[in-house]
């Protein structure tokens, strides 16, 4: 297979997997599971090859494919890897097999449909990451809702319908406005240059008046912010997480939430640099609020999954902070933090799922002293908890440290120039580090230590499959914590390009276009 | 003279229309409608559109209304709609109609149709009309037959459905 085609292979392998599942008889659940795992592993291996082949010294897109899709509209099937998405693609492919394997025993109902949906969402997520055409991106972006809706809605907990509808309606609202913005953006490009194109590369060159940018960015940002989620648009997340089956939570926390931040870094900020400048204070404030608010809420939850869900809000606040800081450290840190959060939150959700399978309770108060009952489990749980806390040598530290440093580094010159609020925000964000320890250790404390109790005893410790899943995650966590450099090499040029795209355009240099005509209702 | 007749028939048809709203028994309503139709036919005749006037009388009064009257007689059921003529929407309905008429009259009063002034030609005599109809408009003749065919089938289907249905 040719180099460029390989990305397509990776992308469409889940579709092939779905097709293959169709052929398996419905009752052969084991075959379904095995086949799914095999496809996912294959996909991961291919992705690793892609990752290794990805040349860190080349800017721009690699493994690019560009085929006309809706030629009439200038829509292309245009995919490629660059510094911004390479790690996220790797993360997605990495979590794929783990999700599949993690659900082996948990999912007993409609197994075939379940794995089809996992493939479906895998496809949509990868597609969103690699798409280089706004239309294609939007299609993948929205398509993601469908499998997630079903995964939560079919295999979820008691209030699954409420949770899944909340999730879909929340996200869809953002997307609707984004759709309008997409159309408007493409129309502006056309009216300025005569080119009808959805290609990111073309759209980056659009020059819009500030007021239009502000509106369009608002629409894009709303959609992305809901997905991230940024406080106060976050309330779907705890519900979705709590009700989702383990695999759903892992996908949600592991990859789906990164869509929002990826959207910001790939589209939101670079498309509207001047508007970004206008919005940066708001975004930074919201990011810091997310960090602290999420942490505070995680502190008072009694449902284990909710704690992790709120911690996700807090952790993604760091990502937003890093991205908005526009400091190279912050950007790189944000990318690492995305991956790290995918690993830790994904891993923690898997672990909660494992205990839930055994005890059928997510109530923190129902547990205690698991360190004695489940020693191996506890070790993994502790490691992932500490990674979530951001302890050095784990991936969490790499991300948080670089983000905070970036934010501070960006704020300091402003402080010296007499603008204090960015510095205040950076300092408040550092406070999140303390709060993070507070709620995560509270979880570990109640869960692992103290008097031994569990709703269902005796408990079997992790089996080989579960150990293998967690071991892989833990290895990745430490790898990213100890040797992030190899990963950051791959993303550096992408981060630089992003930074330049957003920063290099001096304010006021844009050419004004005609404001939109027509009347509003 | 002609103008007076015109006015007379205008008023007569209007009166017939209004009577339709107030008369209690459907048969009387039918009679009011027939009178309106005949008045309209007279107006057409005054305008010199004899073909239409004839059609009006033949098709409407002769066919449609006879059918209606037959139906009325067939369905001589006594039910509340005979004693309570009006639905709950009497006032809104009347108000709507009045404002609509006022709107139409006031709106159209100021506008002069672009087609004004050609006057009556020989177009509406039976012979030129028939020739034109069969030469230039025979498509409509064909289509009309399809339409009637469909209507007949529809009517039969409904009647048969009645026989079969009820279950």
């Amino acid at each position, binding site marked *: 297979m040719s180099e460029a085609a390989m990305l397509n292979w990776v992308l469409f392998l889940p579709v092939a997997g779905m097709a293959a599942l169709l052929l398996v008889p419905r009752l052969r659940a084991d075959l379904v599971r095995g086949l799914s795992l095999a496809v996912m592993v294959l996909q991961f291996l291919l992705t690793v090859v892609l990752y290794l082949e990805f040349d860190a010294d080349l800017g721009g897109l690699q493994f690019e494919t560009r085929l006309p899709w*809706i030629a009439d509209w200038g829509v292309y099937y245009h995919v490629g890897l660059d510094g911004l998405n390479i790690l996220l693609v790797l993360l997605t492919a990495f979590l794929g097999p783990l999700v599949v394997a993690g659900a082996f025993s948990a999912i007993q109902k409609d197994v075939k449909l379940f794995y089809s949906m996992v493939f479906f969402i895998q496809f949509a997520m990868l597609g969103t990451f690699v798409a280089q055409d706004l239309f294609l991106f939007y299609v993948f972006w*929205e398509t993601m809702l469908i499998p997630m809706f079903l995964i939560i809605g079919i295999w979820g907990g008691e209030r699954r319908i409420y949770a899944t509808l909340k999730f879909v309606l929340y996200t869809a609202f953002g997307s609707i406005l984004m759709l309008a913005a997409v159309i408007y953006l493409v129309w502006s490009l056309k009216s300025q240059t005569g080119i009808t194109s959805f290609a990111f590369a073309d759209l980056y060159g659009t020059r819009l008046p500030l007021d239009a940018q502000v509106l369009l960015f608002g629409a894009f940002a709303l959609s992305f912010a809901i997905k991230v989620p940024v406080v106060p648009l976050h309330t779907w997340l705890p519900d979705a997480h709590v009700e989702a089956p383990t695999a759903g939570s892992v996908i949600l926390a592991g990859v789906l939430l990164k869509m929002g931040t990826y959207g910001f870094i790939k589209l939101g900020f670079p498309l509207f640099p001047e508007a970004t400048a206008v919005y940066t204070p708001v975004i930074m404030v919201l990011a810091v609020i997310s960090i602290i608010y999420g942490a505070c809420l995680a502190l008072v939850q009694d449902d284990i999954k909710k704690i992790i869900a709120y911690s996700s809000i807090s952790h993604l606040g760091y990502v937003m902070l890093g991205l908005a800081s526009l400091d190279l450290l912050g950007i790189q840190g944000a990318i690492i933090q995305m991956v790290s959060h995918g690993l830790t939150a994904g891993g923690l959700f898997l672990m909660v799922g494992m205990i839930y399978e055994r005890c059928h309770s997510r109530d923190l108060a129902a547990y205690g002293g698991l360190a004695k009952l489940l020693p191996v489990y506890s070790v993994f749980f502790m490691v992932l908890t500490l990674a979530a806390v951001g302890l050095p040598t784990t991936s969490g530290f790499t991300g948080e440290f670089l983000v905070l440093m970036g934010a501070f580094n960006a704020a300091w010159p402003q402080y010296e120039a007499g603008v204090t609020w960015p510095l205040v925000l950076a300092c408040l964000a550092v406070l999140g580090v303390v709060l993070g320890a507070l709620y995560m250790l509270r979880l570990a404390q109640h869960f692992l230590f103290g008097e031994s109790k569990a709703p269902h005893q005796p408990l079997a410790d992790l089996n080989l499959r579960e150990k293998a899943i967690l071991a892989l995650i833990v290895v990745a966590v430490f790898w990213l914590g100890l040797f992030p450099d190899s990963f950051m090499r791959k993303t550096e040029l992408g981060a630089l390009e992003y930074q330049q795209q957003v920063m290099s355009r001096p304010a006021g240099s844009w050419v004004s276009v005609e404001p939109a005509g027509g009347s509003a209702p | 003279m002609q103008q007076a007749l015109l006015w007379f028939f205008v008023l007569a048809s209007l009166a017939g229309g209004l009577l339709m709203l107030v008369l209690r028994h459907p048969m009387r309503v039918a009679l009011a409608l027939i009178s309106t139709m005949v008045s309209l036919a007279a107006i057409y005749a005054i305008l010199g559109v004899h073909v239409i006037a004839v059609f009006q009388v033949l098709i409407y009064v002769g066919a449609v209304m006879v059918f209606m009257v037959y139906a009325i007689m067939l369905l001589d059921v006594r039910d509340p709609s005979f004693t309570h003529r009006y639905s709950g929407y009497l006032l809104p309905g009347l108000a709507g109609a009045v404002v609509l008429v006022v709107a139409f009259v006031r709106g159209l009063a100021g506008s002069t149709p672009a087609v004004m002034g050609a006057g009556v030609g020989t177009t509406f005599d039976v012979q030129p009309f028939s020739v034109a109809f069969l030469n230039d408009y025979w498509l409509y003749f064909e289509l009309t037959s399809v339409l009637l*065919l*469909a209507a007949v*089938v529809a009517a039969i*289907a409904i009647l*048969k459905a009645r026989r079969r249905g009820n279950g």
Partner: protein
Amino acid sequence: MNASTLLTAMLPEHLLLLGILLLIVLEIGARKPREFLWVTLVTVFAAAFAAARLYVSDYAAAPFPGQFSVDPAALLGKATLLGLTLPAVLIAGGEFRGPRFSILLLSSVYGACLMLSSDSFLTLFLGIELMSLPVYALVLLAMGRPESAEGALKYLILGGAGTASLLLGISFTFGSTGSFGLAAFGAALAGGDTMARAAVVLVLLAFYLKAAVVPFHAWAPDAYESASVPVTAYMATVIKSAVLLAAVRMFAGTEVPASMVVLLAGLPLLSMVWGNLTAMRQESFRRMIAYSSIAHAGYLFFAFLGPAQGRYEAVIFYVIAYGLMNLLAFVCLPTGEDATRDRLDNLKGLFGRNPYAAVLIAAAMLSLAGIPPFPGFVAKFLIFRNVIDAGYTGWAVAGLIGSYLGIYFYLRVIQYMFMSAGEEAAAATPSRAWAFAASLCCLLPVILLTIFPGWLLDRL
């Protein structure tokens, strides 16, 4: 005008007429009642094929200048309508004794085709009537539903009001432009005097009424619910499509003057909101689809805000996507007693009983909701793109938000099918060959349009 033009240009119509006549002969000749569904199928298929074939060869002719002409746009429209009729006929298999159903259906399609070729208001008027009159009867032909006559009458009386309004509009159009040609509408639209305005309003109103735009929509839920499933499917797809395509033909190249925008966007917007909101609480599938179709009429009329040259593309694509998906949902409905078959409750747990049907209905619902990657999304995108292209960004945003309101009730159907337990007693419905064939009829083009929407869009 020579005979071959006459024959070729009206080939689809001729084939339909041939079918109608054949069926009449067969009905008269048959000793005992038989279905003759094959005749209908072959007729519709042949007509659709003829239209498609002519479209592919870029055929254009005017056998009756000023009254009836064909061009590729009309032919594609006809092919679409006839193609959409096919699944409706297929699922009618076994439901109707005697060929009257077929005759009425064919006549109605005949009328729909006529509308798409009309050059004068006379043809249009006849087309509309020919399309509508048989449907009044078809609505009534539902098996064992006492309410269906009520639905038919409501449809008929409101339809009659629509007819009257159309005629008054035609007469005013003639009054203000001196022509009965279809192009006169454009002139009236552009013209500013009160009579022209009244003409536009009244003609438009007739179209609104036939397409079920609020507040002229009220017949639709009742008629849809009372009709049998194939007829509802036919009404929701073919009739709505025909009305909209005819409207496109009527608007022709006329840009909507800024002063008329509110008129053309206001009621459709209201329709979206009204239809989408009301659909939330329905318990009957057909009624829900009726409200959904009211909302979709709203989206479709938004297409008229856009630039004139994009209108046809937007509407035809939308109509194809919308029609296919709607039909897909209808053909996959579980079989059973007509009255209970479309209770939404009946869909509960469908996935467990019939995964194939459940997945297809789910896809249909998502497409109707405009969620990618289904063609419904591309269609919606196209329409709102045109609106924004024309500079009506505010309206587009409002319309998109209106469309957002609809997501919930489509998802509810999926929720019922996949996430609720159904009574297992209802299980084991035999999958009928007819319905399966019908589903394939819709599914294959849907797959094509999902993966390669460009294939169609590039040809428009």
